[in-house]
């Protein structure tokens, strides 16, 4: 009897609304959801709750990978640890040496900025967040990290790694947050060429190894190897943090402009953790001239 029930494949006897009617209702519901979520942003609270509900599942997919990492760390031999320790000590010496020079430069910079009445916007606090090893979307570059609104993470917060700019926070759940990487096709980053001070915008192209500066004039002073840093315009990223190195200049026949590809410095594909940064992004506008030019 049970097996007859199991093998019953006739859905035709199911009573209730027809296929078309149910389809219609669900399609309308999807449309309403899309508009409420994308256009109006009404669903942020719901989304945050759903992200929290989904987090254990996402962690459980990540679990074998983090267990493997943990095991390989646990099994590191004495000589491996000694080697790593030596390397880190050397790196530390080198960084301290550079830091000495940097302190002096920072003081000098502060003195100069005081003269022009603007403040340097630098990162004053950061939080280390671990990436949850998941592929979220086939062709989009989004990642999940294990910090959320309970840690004070906010939408639009800049994320960096030890080498350069990584991306920014797009959605925040209670204990997790989604990041968009600078290589995502939806990401645009205001940058400046460090050597010349030329400002432009860097776009992601869906490639982890390369981002692009598409809007440069054909005669722009730019060469391979130039350092590209954040310009601080737009108010999301603090200015002066490294983004990448100019790799190639592409002059397309028939086009006026120059397409420049930049290799990101941040290790977008392999970094297990990122720094979520806080900085004072209140731009201090210079005082208005006193001779009466009214600004509406």
């Amino acid at each position: 009897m049970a097996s007859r029930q199991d093998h019953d494949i006739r859905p035709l006897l199911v009573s209730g609304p027809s296929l078309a009617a149910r389809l219609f209702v669900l399609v309308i519901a999807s449309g309403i959801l899309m508009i409420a979520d994308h256009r109006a942003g009404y669903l942020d609270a719901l989304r945050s709750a759903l992200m929290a509900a989904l987090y254990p599942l996402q962690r459980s997919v990540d679990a074998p990978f983090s267990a493997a990492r943990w095991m390989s760390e646990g099994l590191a031999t004495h000589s491996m640890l000694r080697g790593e320790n030596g390397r880190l000590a050397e790196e530390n010496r080198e960084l301290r040496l550079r830091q000495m020079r940097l302190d002096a430069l920072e003081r000098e910079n502060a003195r100069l900025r005081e003269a022009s009445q603007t403040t340097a916007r630098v990162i004053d606090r950061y939080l280390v967040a671990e990436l949850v090893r998941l592929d979220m979307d086939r062709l989009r570059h989004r990642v999940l990290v294990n910090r959320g609104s309970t840690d004070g993470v906010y939408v639009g917060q800049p994320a960096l790694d030890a080498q350069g700019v990584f991306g920014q926070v797009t959605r925040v759940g209670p204990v997790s947050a989604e990041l968009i990487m600078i290589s995502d096709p939806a990401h645009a980053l205001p940058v400046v060429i460090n050597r010349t001070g030329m400002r432009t915008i860097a776009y992601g192209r869906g490639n982890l190894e390369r981002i692009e500066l598409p809007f440069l004039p054909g005669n722009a002073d730019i060469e391979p190897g130039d350092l590209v840093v954040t310009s601080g315009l737009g108010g999301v990223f603090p200015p002066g943090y490294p983004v990448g190195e100019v790799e190639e200049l592409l002059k397309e026949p028939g086009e006026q402009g120059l397409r420049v590809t930049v290799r990101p410095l941040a290790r977008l594909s392999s970094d297990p953790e990122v720094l979520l940064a806080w900085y004072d992004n209140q731009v201090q506008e210079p005082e208005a001239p006193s001779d009466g030019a009214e600004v509406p």
Partner: protein
Amino acid sequence: MARGTAQRVFRMTLLVAASTAACVIPLPSWLDPARPAFLSITLLWLVFAGPKPAGLLAAWLTGLLLDLLQGGMLGQNALAMVVTVAIALKFRLQVRAFPPLNQAVVVAGLLFIYEFLIFWTDGMAGLPGRGGWRWLYPLTSALLWPLLAALHQRALGRH
């Protein structure tokens, strides 16, 4: 009979959990565009070969789950999934009679429709395009169809 139902619910949950995990498990970035749409395939298999077809509401909820997992616009995958499964349900009885290879062709077609709906809603919402690689996974999914269908069959304990 109650035990049979409980068992089926248990197997179903396992099947859905495994497909969900397969949707997000990390792959090398060059391989990622070719990742088969495991959740869609599972639903289509339930329609074309499974002991009981997946309902539209289940398809819609699965789509929502995908939206959340991918961090995209809520409702986008839900819409694509519900339309795809509705078409599959409409032609269910014909396709059930097809050999696995022909079914694979139908699946590829349905997944192209699915991706077209995503493409269309991306455009409506003003989201940037994802490039030509987006049309690859219906093919890889179809190539895997006979194999996955056999695996699913086994997972639900039917031969």
